[in-house]
């Protein structure tokens, strides 16, 4: 296991460096003067010059990057132009909201997807399988904003079961928190659930065709036992990869869902910061998101090793298809 980590770590660090440089460049390459963007059209030229100096915008690019990276490594992502708060604090204040709905959504998606996929795979090409596949196909095709608005209109407005918008903090009121979290989580879960089901079904079908399963069947082991004890684990690789990618991509889903449900999360912060030209926050967010993406994928790689001992021994080179083959 240590060998696996040892092989992966340098790649992770190199990727993070690339990401940080691209993030930094991203804001430098935007059209227009960032200082003017920040201050707006009515600001005086002196004020613009002051901001340029404050941001070291007149320094050469490499020295600006080194300065910024040095600060970022020490946890200093600068201060927001909008609120004058440290960027890291601003993000930390909102991260729990996004994490909560993101993880809740992934959990809901997995809870629904795994059994659905198992049923589908066990009865391939049956009516039930086709129904499940059609339904997931439809769910996958629906953009999350349509799902979100549908949920708001039906569950919040017509049935009046849950609030349409708003957020209650977990620390303030657990029940109230769940009430405000459930619709956004469902809106995010719908698409994920569809993807998970389809991928898991495909892998399960491959596994179920293998000799070991035929052997198990011939021994008279019950269907449920075969499905969940023998077939599920070797069919988890693709799902694990996709779940990893999805967790890394929580933010992209959060941008839409948090705006629609008026949640004070990181996705909303990103949208507001972009529209209000809060350069420092955009930069900090892009860096953190990219970094979390890289780290989640690193963890997924390690999880492969836990699922399949041969991955550990190969030092991270997994041979798909040969597993149990």
């Amino acid at each position, binding site marked *: 296991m240590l060998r696996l980590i040892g092989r992966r770590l340098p790649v992770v660090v190199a990727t993070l460096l690339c990401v940080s440089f691209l993030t930094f460049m991203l804001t430098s390459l935007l059209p*227009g003067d960032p200082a003017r963007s920040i201050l707006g*059209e009515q600001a005086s030229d002196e004020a613009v010059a002051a901001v340029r100096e404050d941001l070291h915008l007149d320094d050469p690019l490499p020295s600006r990057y080194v300065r910024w990276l040095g600060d970022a490594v020490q946890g200093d992502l600068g201060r927001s132009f909008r609120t004058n708060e440290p960027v890291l604090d601003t993000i930390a204040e909102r991260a729990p909201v996004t994490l909560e709905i993101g993880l809740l959504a992934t959990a809901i998606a997995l809870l629904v997807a795994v059994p659905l996929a198992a049923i589908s795979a066990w009865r391939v090409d049956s009516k039930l399988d086709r129904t499940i596949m059609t339904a997931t196909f439809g769910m996958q095709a629906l953009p999350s904003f349509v799902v979100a608005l549908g949920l708001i209109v039906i569950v919040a407005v017509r049935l009046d079961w849950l609030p*349409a*918008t708003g*957020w209650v903090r977990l620390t303030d009121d657990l029940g109230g928190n769940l009430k405000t979290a459930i619709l956004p989580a469902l809106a995010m879960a719908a698409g994920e659930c569809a993807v998970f089901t389809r991928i898991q079904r495909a892998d399960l079908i491959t596994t179920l065709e293998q000799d070991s399963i035929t052997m198990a069947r011939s021994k008279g082991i019950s269907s449920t036992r075969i499905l969940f004890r023998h077939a599920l684990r070797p069919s988890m690789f693709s799902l694990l990869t996709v779940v990893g990618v999805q967790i890394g991509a929580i933010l992209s889903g959060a941008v839409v869902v948090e705006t*629609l449900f008026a949640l004070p999360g990181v996705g*909303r912060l990103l949208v507001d910061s972009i529209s*209000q030209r809060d350069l420092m926050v955009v930069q900090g967010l892009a860096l953190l998101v990219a970094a979390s993406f890289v780290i989640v994928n690193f963890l997924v790689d390690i999880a492969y090793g836990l699922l399949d001992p041969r991955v550990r021994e190969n030092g991270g080179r997994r041979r798909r298809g040969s597993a149990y083959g």
Partner: protein
Amino acid sequence: MTSSKADTTRRPWRRTRRWSVIVAAALVAAACGSGDDSDESVSSDGAAETIDGDNAEPSSEATTAGNGSDDPARGGSISVGLEAETDSWLPGEGQYSFSGQSVAMAIYDPLLKRDVNGEIRPYLAAGIEVNDDLTEWTLTLRPDVTFHDGTPLNADAVVRMFEDYLSTETSNLGGDGQMGQVDHVEIVDELTVTYVLSEPNAAFSDVLSGPAGYAFSPDAADAAGPDAGAQPVGTGPFVFESWQRDSQLTVVRNEDYWQPGLPYLDSITFRPIPDVESRLQSLIAGDVQVLSSLTADTAARVAELDGVTDHVHIGNSTGGVILNTLNPPFDDVRVRKALAHAVDVDAIIEVSGAAGIVEPATQTYGPSDPYYSTEAAELYPTYDPEQAEEHLAEYVNDPDRSDGKAVGEPVSFRYDCVTDPINREVSQLFQAYWSAVGIDVELREVEQATHIEEARSKDYEAKCYRMGSDDDPYRDLARTFYDSDDPYAYTGFTSDELKSLLDQIRVEPEFEARRELVLETSKIMAEEVPQLVTYNTVSTVTAQDGVSGITDWVFPDGTAGNGAPNTIVMWAFVHTAT
């Protein structure tokens, strides 16, 4: 004269009540852009009300609210859906959008405020006077007013607000249009201060009706240090309780409010909900009882709702096109007029989803504003393709035409607008109308920052732009049309007559005389057409049945206020049903 008199008594909003039945599915359909039927129904109704105005009813309501004879219920709590969050609540630090200014009216009181006729009067202050050369503005304060933290509102507090917060280097109210024009503030006595200006300005009082006039406790701000923006302490009808950024801000009744009997409500929760659709659904679901909307297409949507009252305000800014009058071909008024005559603004309004809510504009001032000029409205070149062709033919066949092209060659120019789906449609519509009269137009999409930079440096020919302002007319006119070199003078247009009018407005303290002068400037704009106007900004406050008093506020002396322009509501006067 009669017509302008009528204008001044007209209130700048209208009230509508509709009982149409809608289903949720229809709302989703409308969100996708298909709302023809609904637009039509608003059209017949809304247009009529805008033109007729509404003189008696709202002011009588205002009086009843003021007298309390109608006995609005005390108590109750409401949630208010806003368009946007505010970054900081400390004046000088916070960028107060209209949404932010509305919240501020719960926590703070403005020193001065506009009345029903558009005139500025003391609200929190007891009085304001100016010396003859318009350089010294003396403000009197009311005795026994304290901030929520117990600090008395006195001359010392006003000076500290000015010196330590509003006029500092980092203050966003430190510019020349705001507190930057104040040289210093002098204490006259315990309750009197004098703002000494570096130059005469007859419209300085306008500044004190905005964020620069929101009285906040300097003691509390000192104590909170960098967190002052998140812990506002004012003199207002409600006391700040809690704020979770981008989620909600809660205020509770100020038991020691200086206006006896006010406020009515126990608490208000302000909730920024950025998405239009969710905001509407939150109102329908009852998550919020009051909703503010700042766009015409949202105004059209809320007009469809059942069981609510809409308070619509037509503002003093418009969308439109700025023309660079310093360069050919727009240095020639014939081309500018042709451009205006060529476009059917009704179609622009239709494309923008604002049909039935607004009428084509002829000037930046809204039709019910005291500064609205009926003469300018008649002079402004409206849709008439034949006249457009005539003006163009005159220019094109002029051997001395300013663009130096050969006689008969068509006029050509580039039109820039910011990337945005609606902007794109509107730009294409403009292009179609201009092409129809024989003008070659090249469309170009630009990023916002570049757009502004090009306008400031006058590195453009024609651009889509928002023009006008709800501030005192002088502030906007002076920076836009006085000095062609001013970066803010995007069109570069000015004239001796215009300059002389602006010079007079600058030193004219009398409201009625100022108004006459402003009307003259609007006539010049309509004749010279340095910019094309499409339609005025629309704001709507929608209140669920049972929530009243949105526009019924009065000054402490009983004078009716100016309602809820740009969704800025005086929350002290809002109450639930009796």
